């Protein structure tokens, strides 16, 4: 996506990638202390490479504002509707 945007003439460094797990963020920031995390796959290293290059910046977001929740777990009505609104999914009667 970054490359596509660059083709259109929009350059953005450090694209924020918001994650609600602080442990995962610390792991991405910190290159040492991984005797317990040897099983981590190659795509995590891919993320870490990009972070060290400055392409992305992994940041923390509170679980309430984690919009990707709707794609990973079943939610109750109020939370589901709130996230749906945040994703800009609206009723056609509300736009006009």
């Amino acid at each position: 996506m970054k490359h596509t945007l660059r083709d259109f003439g929009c350059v953005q460094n450090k694209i924020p990638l918001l994650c609600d797990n602080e442990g995962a963020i610390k792991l991405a920031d910190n290159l040492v202390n991984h005797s317990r995390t040897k099983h981590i796959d190659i795509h995590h290293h891919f993320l870490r490479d990009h972070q060290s290059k400055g392409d992305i910046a992994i940041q923390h977001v509170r679980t309430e504002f984690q919009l990707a929740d709707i794609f990973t777990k079943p939610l109750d009505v109020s939370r589901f509707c709130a996230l749906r609104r945040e994703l800009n999914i609206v009723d056609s009667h509300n736009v006009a």
Partner: protein
Amino acid sequence: MMGELIYFLRFQIKQLKAGTFISQTKYTTDMLKKFDMDKAKPVKTPMPTIGHLDLDGDGKAIDQKVYRSMIGSLIYLCVYRPDIMLSVCMCARFQANPKECHLMAIKRIFWYLVFTPNLGLWYPKGSTFTVHGYFDLDYAGCRVKQKSTSGTCQFLCRSLVS
């Protein structure tokens, strides 16, 4: 001469001053009629909060053709309805050997669509082009193989793009 784009590949497109709205209302209602679900009782969410499905080896087997055609229709709807993505993809994993409980899960999605046939994606007009992404993981959430579910969404300014 070409007019303004309003209907394309079963997407309904509304172009307004404040932004663009894309929905699949007609496709949704046609699909509900096709599967005889248009009179069903509406529900507010596409799946219950304890909605993870399992293989259900002892359950009664059902017609694979119908199940697969339902999945196929729903996957096309997912393009502009990311709210049903999770539930549709979960049902799609059991296509090889669908049982009655999986059919019930699919029906629940249809009941949700009866409740919300008019939803679509709204792309507000904006001037900045900043990307930000969200990433989330449901660790070992799958009841069949204990696999994790990951979900991502990327926003360009305030609009969902992937």
